[in-house]
């Protein structure tokens, strides 16, 4: 073999590079790197704002200024004031906290419950699979938001019961992704090779299958985070989520909805905030999948 021959290496290297470039750029061409970069920056900025909200807000978000309701943007109030004259910018910064925390809870709990259920269904097969999959179907059979409203109505309106309600609808989503990814992955030859080497099925599941479906899982989870945020905002908009004095973007929309003809800023800015969070999340989720596919291709 001539693997050690440096001359041959030199000959081979440019060819390798070209190949990477072609595959790499073709796969990422659907999503320019700038878009991904801007998305990541936006997400970092929003998360930072949420964390440091108490330090950076210009006003107390709950202090009313009843003499100036529905005031448009001004130098003192960049985003204007809402129905009670509260500073919209401060409320958006503060609202970022619950708006991010809600989906985080939802995704964390849905992940912790849904992922093992998905693995169990895929691995156990038979009756366990049927039982778990039908349970998922049952939850899917209800429109997610409707089911959430029923749950909130049962447990009383609060931020946490909204989170709980949305979580219930996200467990089957997570579980189903894991189940199907796991079923596909288990058919792959390397898993068979592991079995042939005499490794136990737990070992194969935890060390081989799980890491390999991890990329799909991370991408889907990112996407579901965005969906959960929208669902929670919808519940809040219906008045079933965050309750005053709690602030999230959904409840800001609900509040501003009544005065939309006096001043649109109360609707525009929270809506914009939601868009600026959800759209980048979608891009990042896409990128995670594409990036990994690009790596696969090279492998």
């Amino acid at each position, binding site marked *: *073999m001539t693997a050690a021959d440096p001359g041959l290496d030199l000959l081979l290297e440019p060819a390798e590079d070209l190949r990477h470039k072609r595959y790499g750029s073709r796969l990422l061409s659907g999503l320019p790197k700038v878009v991904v970069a801007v998305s990541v920056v936006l997400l970092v900025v929003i998360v930072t704002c949420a964390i440091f909200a108490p330090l950076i807000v210009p006003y107390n978000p709950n202090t009313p200024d009843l003499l100036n309701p529905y005031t448009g943007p001004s130098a003192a109030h960049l985003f204007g004031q809402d129905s009670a004259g509260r500073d919209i910018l401060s409320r958006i910064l503060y609202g970022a906290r619950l708006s991010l925390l809600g989906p985080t809870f939802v995704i964390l709990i849905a992940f912790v419950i849904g992922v093992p259920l998905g693995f169990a269904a895929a691995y156990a097969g038979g009756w366990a699979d049927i039982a778990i999959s039908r349970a998922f179907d049952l939850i899917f059979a209800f429109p997610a938001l409707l089911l959430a409203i029923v749950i909130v109505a049962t447990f009383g309106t609060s931020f946490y019961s909204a989170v709980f309600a949305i979580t219930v609808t996200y467990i089957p989503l997570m579980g189903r992704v894991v189940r199907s990814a796991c079923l596909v992955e288990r058919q792959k*030859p*390397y898993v068979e*090779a592991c079995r*042939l080497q*005499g490794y136990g099925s737990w070992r194969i599941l935890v060390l081989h299958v799980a890491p390999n479906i991890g990329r799909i899982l991370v991408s889907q989870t990112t996407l579901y985070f965005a969906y959960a945020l929208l669902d929670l905002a919808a519940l809040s908009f219906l008045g079933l989520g965050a309750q005053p004095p709690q602030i999230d973007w959904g409840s800001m929309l609900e509040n501003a909805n009544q005065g939309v003809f006096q001043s649109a800023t109360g609707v525009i800015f929270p809506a914009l905030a939601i868009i600026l969070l959800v759209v980048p999340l979608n891009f990042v989720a896409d990128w995670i999948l594409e990036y990994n596919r690009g790596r*696969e291709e090279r492998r």
Partner: protein
Amino acid sequence: MTGPEAAGAAGDVTLALRRVSTSLRVGSELRPVVVDVDLDVGAGEIVGLVGESGSGKSMTARTIADALPPGARASGEVLMGGENLLAMSRRRRRAMQPSIGMIFQDPRAFIDPLWRVEDHLTEGLRVHKGMSRADARARAIELLDTVGIDQPERRIHQYPGEMSGGMLQRVMIAGALSVEPTVLLADEATTALDVTTQAGIVRLLDRLRRERGLAVLFITHDLALAHAICDRVYVMYAGRIVEVRSGRRIFDDPRHPYTMGLLAARPKVDSSSRRLPVIQGTPISAMDSPAGCPFHPRCPYVLPECRERIPPLVAVPEGAARCVRATEGSARLSASTQVSSEADVALAVTEENTECS
């Protein structure tokens, strides 16, 4: 039958198959894919198993390796160290697993893409031999060196995606060797590689069996390759062994018409203008074999009795062939072709038949 036994010259038999039959579950019925296979691989031997796709050669290997698809049924005896693997408890069988190594056609698919070479090679050592991480790593570097990979200390940190196919095949062999198996099943292990790399892998297998006394079952559809490296070659057709010969004889003096057809169907360097001779008809698997000799519908030398019953293995020089005319030899058989009334369904062994360009 004990026909091929005579050919098993090299040392003691490490792996022996006795009347092994395997059936796959198709819908609600069991369909045979391997029928009554007897096969021996001695320590330090490379034994070829040759046949077309669907001939049952991979299923034979899977029967040995306990890698049959769900619902499959295997009967007969797969003997290793005097014990029948097919009759063992699940637990005992799993404990035997490290003594059978298996390598495949496409190493890229059979190695976890997220595991570095080091992790791949040390996994077996840590699981089966209980080695510490440091010991296992040292051993892995040795193994890479053994299989002829340069700079093993550097390679060990790479991911499968960073290596070429030939190199990955070496890694897969190293992985299979890590737990010191006595038998290595190579299922089309060189088919996907270019000729130079293929030669390298074949040389490696040859060295390993000599240095380690490894018993290698080399599955391929390339009869010329099998002839070049194997001590003994088994030719399979429709799930049955149709010919067992020494590596030399199978090439010079094939006795089963199917083997003759395979040899005639190789492209030749000296005659470029002619169309490649082919065996008429399509290969069949054991599940749809006709009555009688499974090859008879495609055989140019067919006799009436071929349709009646499956011929036994007939002893021929350095082996055996499952053909009623096995003792006649290819020269006399081709001379008799024109007598056969089945000339139009004939096997295009002779070159005259193929001048239809």
